[in-house]
């Protein structure tokens, strides 16, 4: 690396494309602070599809937007291909204030050093690297400028990168339109001339033209009609395989996430409560919130629907964190749950019981 941006080669060696460490995103200031994302950490391997689920307001969209640097993050770091692409400074500044009050000069100096490094990283971001992360937005109507033609919308990213060659740009646009299942002639039209599914395809084309390695899909199908959803899902699957994309798939519909993703993270009120491979999560949902979420999925199956028992999650009665604070722990290989010591024991025991029962049923 030419410059001195923080670089962690071990992340590249283990095949991690994106590493989110203690990500914090707070909104507001003083006593009115909303902790939209609070201490979230995860790693995404190259080529994998990572799902984030949770109810609205749990911070899943904010996480996605923080990764792509639409917000200045409050705390934590985001590493892409081993290079720090985003670092939170506000948290360090607060810490410096606290340390100054405590007259801990040594700590102040140390923190200042850290702050300087973070600010340096933020200022010397590698543009070529960050354009490899692209995003697809939820609402295909709102996310397209009504006064731009499809071609303008799609090649805007190229312009930002300083590529102004008209001939090569329009060739690229035609290419990408074909890839997402539209006709190149559509390039001169305006967004209002398209149906919802086609607009979402334009949104996908806009992301794909930058040749991304990591694609963040923020509820790409929840604003679409039922019959169109499957088309868009299949399209995403195709481009994923064709371009070898890594994906972060944000949704509140668990059945879609289960269908699409290799690993699933469940978020609740800004925190990750459970993280496991999708099969594992559905086989052994451990955190009570995950269970509540799973029990709420409506299935197109009247018999099981009419007998469904919905579980209710009430954080104050489900957990007793008065004695020991919870942390994010690995209770089985690759299966993380937010829990404290007694809960960890209980979860492990329960998991064994479920396995035993299933074994009996299979015999």
């Amino acid at each position: 690396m030419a410059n001195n941006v923080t670089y962690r080669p071990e992340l590249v060696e283990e095949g991690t494309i994106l590493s989110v460490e203690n990500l914090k995103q707070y909104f507001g200031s003083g006593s009115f602070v909303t902790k939209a994302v609070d201490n979230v950490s995860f790693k995404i391997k190259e080529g994998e599809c990572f799902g984030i689920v949770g109810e609205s307001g749990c911070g899943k969209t904010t996480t996605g937007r923080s990764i792509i640097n639409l917000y200045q993050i409050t705390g934590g770091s985001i590493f892409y291909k081993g290079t720090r692409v985003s670092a939170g400074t506000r948290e360090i500044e607060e810490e410096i204030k606290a340390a100054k009050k405590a007259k801990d000069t040594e700590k102040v100096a140390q923190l200042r050093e850290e702050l300087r490094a973070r600010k340096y990283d933020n200022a010397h971001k590698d543009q070529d690297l960050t354009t490899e992360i692209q995003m697809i937005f939820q609402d295909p109507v709102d996310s397209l400028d009504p006064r731009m033609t499809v071609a303008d919308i799609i090649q805007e990213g190229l312009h930002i990168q300083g590529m102004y060659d008209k001939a090569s740009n329009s060739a690229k646009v035609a290419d990408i339109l074909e890839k997402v299942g539209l006709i190149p002639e559509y390039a001169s039209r305006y967004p209002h001339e398209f149906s919802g599914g086609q607009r979402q395809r334009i949104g996908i084309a806009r992301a794909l033209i930058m040749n991304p390695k990591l694609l963040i899909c923020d509820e790409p199908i929840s604003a679409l009609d039922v019959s169109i959803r499957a088309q868009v899902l299949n399209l995403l699957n195709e481009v994923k395989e064709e371009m070898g994309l890594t994906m972060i798939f944000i949704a509140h519909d668990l059945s879609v996430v289960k269908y699409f993703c290799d690993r699933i993270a469940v978020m609740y009120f800004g925190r990750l409560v459970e993280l496991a491979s999708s099969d594992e999560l559905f086989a052994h949902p451990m955190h009570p919130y995950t269970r509540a979420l799973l029990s709420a999925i409506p299935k197109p199956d009247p018999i099981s629907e009419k007998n469904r028992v919905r579980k209710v999650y009430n954080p104050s009665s489900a957990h007793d964190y008065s004695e020991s604070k919870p942390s994010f722990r690995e209770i089985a290989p690759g299966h993380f749950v937010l829990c404290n010591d007694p809960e960890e024991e209980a979860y492990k025991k329960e998991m064994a019981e479920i396995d035993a029962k299933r074994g009996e049923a299979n015999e």
Partner: protein
Amino acid sequence: MEKKNAAMGTIDYPHTVGPVPEGKEVVLSVRNLAISFATDDGFVKAVRGVAFDLYKGETLCIVGESGSGKSVTSKTIMGILAGNAHIDSGSVTYEGEDLTKIAEDEFHRIRGTKIGMIFQDPLSSLNPIAKIGKQITEVMITNGNKVKKVYDNLINAELIKYKNDLRLLQIAKEEYKFIKKNKSSTPEQIAEAEAHYEAEKARLTPLIAEDKAALAAKKVEAKAKVKEFVGEIKARHKAKLNDLFAKAKEDPEAKKNLLANYISERRRYVSELKVTHKEAKRRALKIMAEVGIPHPEQRFNQYPFEFSGGMRQRIVIAIALTADPDILICDEPTTALDVTIQAQILELINRLKVARNMSVMFITHDLGVVANMADRVVVMYAGKIVEYGTAMDVFYTPAHPYTWALLSSIPDVDSKEKLEAIPGTPPNMLFPPEGDAFALRSKYAMGIDFKEEPKMYQISDTHYASTWLLDERAPEATMPKIVSTRIENSLRKAGMKDGE
């Protein structure tokens, strides 16, 4: 009453609904309903011959994608169609009357009070600058003038007869204007329409004059009666007050309580004349508790923005329930909500349905929600019913290719097979396709599908579908494997449950 309107093209829509099963009572029946919207580009045929019955105490789900005409159907039932809508044919019968033909004055007595409706977006259906309490009690207070109610009830029959006759004349006139304006109508058609209008006018004008005279007479009579009624209440009130004052003069103890007694008597008197704010609040709090809003006392004085999406939807349901309706129409009430909140709202609607013995018409595009709610399902596509039957029929023995496609296009929690997406987009209803509307997107389409519209084929006593595949001449067609495996799986699971 069948209206022929050649200018609109064919109007002979199939409308079989099958017999009413024993023990079921029909509360609402829709027959042969066709609605089009006049736009600059021509007529958008949103609904093209829909017929179904709604039974007492059941939930009927209408499924279909946007533009399939499901919302338009429900809006017709509520009588809240947009101004450019035109009812081409058909009827909506409720309590022996055709809701498409009655006067607005009569609809006031049905809309909201007998048929309630919940809309899709709970944020936009509440007033952002009015307190929740005000919005819930608004209806009760506006309709709370008891004296006016007595008067209205006295003149009701005459008023409605008068207004309905006026409305019939208006419909005839509109129809004539409509045909006259339509560029594709021939001079003969216009002449015919004019003759029809003149005939109606000749028939109805004396009737209307008669009605008007009868109404005026009844009004005089009713006014006298109301005066008597109010006079009685006033006299009673006066007597009681006099009694109070007389007692206060004699008894010092009573004198002390005079003010309190005076106020309470005054309140009683007012509550005899109208629904007071206090009474409305008491009723509102009860309903708020019923729909599961915690701390109703406190919530009563809050604004909509202080509520979460689920709570807002509960408020909307509470408002719909204040009038104690027979039929509740829910137009995608959970589409804007999260899965967990959605499950709560669905449970709430189910609970209220049983507790109040309501009939629910539930409009959605989510098949999972349908499976949860429905007793019977109507599947709509391009303004037509393509399949209907009980939930069991439609989910476990689906017969129409569109139902198959819907079932195969949603991801299943238990499998990771490639989804079978429905190719293409819904047809443009300015130019509705001939024959089976779904044929263009269906891989099961046959030659006849593009020429002739299939009739409703009966599969079982309760199950009907409109597809040529059910014709005896059609080749054997089986549903996609992904659907049949899912059905097998869920039936097997259910079988295991029965075994235990």
